[in-house]
């Protein structure tokens, strides 16, 4: 029986104030203290259909864990959560909850939905503070070996699920630290790297082996994983890491970066601490970031923290089409980011040393909807103007990295280079090879990549337990 509706609005989460945080890399959102978490959890009316669960790609038993928080059984809440979600402290921070679990919440129909993401974050952080970790369910070893390529959220989920089923899992990661976008892309102020390391550490405790500095397609090809190293199945979760640059003059001037390079230098290599660390990043005084998604928001807010006097976000459509999370757009504006809408760059202009000096832009207006259903931006003739900038960062989407495709001829890819895989099982056309996450769908979300990992793990387990066909 559903209980009575209590408070109609959600409990706000404390945040570092904008003036302080805009110059530091400390976390912006501070999380609920115990009492606020309980206050928020009590709002769940335990409705009968529990639509929130359908909104979560990894099927967290939301009503159950929220109830456990409400009665202060935090340990129980953590067990419930971690049954389905191997990276709860991460998801609680970066999931687009407002479009997923919270979008479906019954309470949200008339009032504000339960703040499921914030509660998830609370439970995971509480568990970490008390040293509680995820445990294996003690499945006996099966003797089957699975290779996971890429240590982003999809790969980590596959690895955890298969390890719990007793398979021997090795994750191969190209960079020197695991985590994928969680490590190199999303900045410290939104997702502290210590938390990523902590959740990955919990996976290693399940028996997953992570081999960094292994570029598949170079160090080993996919075929060599089977033939040379004796793996029984392979999961490819290499993400959509190929940066796009627009076809305009000036993109190779000094001071023009892809968001990937800008963020990798700052996050993975910690260039914001230069010269304490060796990797530099140019500290632009006037920075323009091109794009309107989460990546663009992260880049422009990083620019401020690297000391920019002016940081602009230049987006070619209007505010309502921006793909970034609303909360992130608000945070960016509070911190002083100048959002320049309906504008696109047409040329980047350099000085005699080939350093960026200005960007020529053009105003846009919205025409008919395009294939994506969003109204197509069209340039307004005669509306060009110059913006004085010394750094330009492009966050205009990513493509599929060609390394694995070009070294695995029998792996099917589509016209954009993404791997063709069954959305239900992740199975590719190549025997024993599964794929999921951004390398299949194109840039999406942490939780959708994890969902793909979960489904692929199920399919791989089935594949490994079915008898081998003749002649194999």
């Amino acid at each position, binding site marked *: 029986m559903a209980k009575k509706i209590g408070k109609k609005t959600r409990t706000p989460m404390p945040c570092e104030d904008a003036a302080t945080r805009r110059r530091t890399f400390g976390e912006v959102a501070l999380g609920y203290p115990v009492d606020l978490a309980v206050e928020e959890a009590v709002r769940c009316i335990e409705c009968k259909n529990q639509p929130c669960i359908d909104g979560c790609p990894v099927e967290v038993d939301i009503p159950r864990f929220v109830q456990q928080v409400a009665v202060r059984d935090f340990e129980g809440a953590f067990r419930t959560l971690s049954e389905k979600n191997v990276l709860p402290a991460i998801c609680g921070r970066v999931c687009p909850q407002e479009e997923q679990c919270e979008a479906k919440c019954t309470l949200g129909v008339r009032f504000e939905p339960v703040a499921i993401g914030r509660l998830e974050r609370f439970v995971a952080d509480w568990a970490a503070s008390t040293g509680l970790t995820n445990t294996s369910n003690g499945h006996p070893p099966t003797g089957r070996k699975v290779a996971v390529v890429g240590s982003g959220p999809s790969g980590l989920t596959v690895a955890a699920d298969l390890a719990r089923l007793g398979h021997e899992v090795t994750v191969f990661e*190209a*960079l*020197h630290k695991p985590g994928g976008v969680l490590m*190199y892309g999303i900045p410290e102020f939104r997702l502290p790297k210590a938390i990523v390391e902590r959740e990955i550490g919990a996976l290693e405790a399940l028996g997953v082996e992570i081999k*960094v*500095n*292994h*570029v598949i397609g*170079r*160090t*080993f090809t996919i075929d060599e994983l089977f033939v040379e190293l004796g793996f029984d199945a392979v999961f490819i979760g290499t993400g959509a*890491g*190929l*940066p796009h*640059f627009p076809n305009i003059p000036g*993109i*190779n001037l*000094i*001071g023009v*970066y*892809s968001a*990937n*390079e800008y963020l*990798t*230098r700052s996050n993975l*290599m*910690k260039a914001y601490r*230069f*010269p*304490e*660390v*060796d*990797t*530099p990043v*140019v500290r632009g005084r006037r920075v323009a970031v091109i794009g309107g998604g989460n990546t663009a928001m992260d880049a422009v807010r990083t620019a401020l923290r690297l000391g920019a006097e002016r940081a602009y976000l230049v987006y070619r459509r209007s505010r309502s089409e921006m793909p970034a999370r609303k909360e992130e757009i608000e945070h960016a504006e509070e911190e002083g980011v100048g959002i320049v809408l309906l504008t696109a760059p047409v040329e980047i202009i350099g000085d005699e*040393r*080939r350093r960026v000096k200005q960007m020529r832009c053009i105003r846009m207006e919205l025409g008919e909807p395009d294939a994506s259903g969003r109204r197509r931006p069209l340039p307004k003739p005669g509306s060009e103007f110059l913006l004085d900038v010394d750094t330009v960062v492009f966050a205009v989407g990513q493509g599929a*990295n*060609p*390394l694995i495709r070009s070294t695995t001829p029998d792996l099917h890819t589509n016209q954009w280079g993404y791997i063709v895989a069954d959305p239900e099982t992740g199975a590719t056309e190549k025997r024993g090879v599964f794929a999921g996450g951004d390398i299949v769908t194109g840039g999406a979300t942490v939780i959708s990549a994890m969902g793909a990992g979960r489904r692929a793990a199920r399919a791989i387990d089935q594949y490994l337990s079915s008898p081998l066909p003749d002649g194999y």
Partner: protein
Amino acid sequence: MHPILSREVLAPDVVRLWVEAPTIARKRRPGQFVIVRISDAGERIPLTIADADPDIGAIALVVQGVGKTTRMLNAMEAGEALLDVVGPLGRPTRIEPKQRVCCIGGGIGAAVVYPLARGFKAADGHVTAIVGARTRALVILEHEIRHVSDRCVVSTDDGTYGRPGLVTDALRALIDAGAAFDEVVAVGPLPMMRAVCEVTRPIGLRTTVSLNPIMVDGTGMCGGCRVTVNGEPKFVCVDGPEFDGHRVDFAELAARLTAFREQEIEAAARYQPAAATAR
């Protein structure tokens, strides 16, 4: 961790390190490189695989101290270890059988040219090598390169050793004397590679160069290593490092290499005192 098995000084500020990396030693092909990181606060820097010994599971790196990281590497002793070594990266050199090639190595470029010359030789090619340096003390790997080539010319800019003059003078002399080449492979400082291309362009002689832009990941993820080849953007770490030299926009690459000049000077200056006390 990747222990350094041995260290030898080849020239002032140039050392050869043999580093344990068994998988890479087995997999690498001529023309490929690795990215290394010395320590947790360290930068990722690309270095060519100058040689490999699959039996002992080690690769050779020839390092020229030009800035903080390369100087730190140069100062490391056998027994110390590199934190990260990833590779082999980049596309291997295209080695067709029975090629008549002229392999030109300028300065540290000789370290890159050596495995290439050996590769061409192993494919029944006819190899002419030109090893150049500013002055006698900076000529490296002469003995090794001579060993894998049919003809080897050493030249120094100041005439202290071998043929006096630039490597381009040596190349021009060979061509004028009637040497026939299917291909020239040139590796060295940018101005040198560019000058070689200007010698070979008028006579339509195919010229391959190995580019050395600033890199971060080496997997095609950041785009920092992009260069313009034939008017199109290319990522050197995955599409290269070798390209048709006649189509490379050298001026752009030269400029991009100065992107972090100020920070490099700062880092190098901060390194000096520490290095002095370490010795």
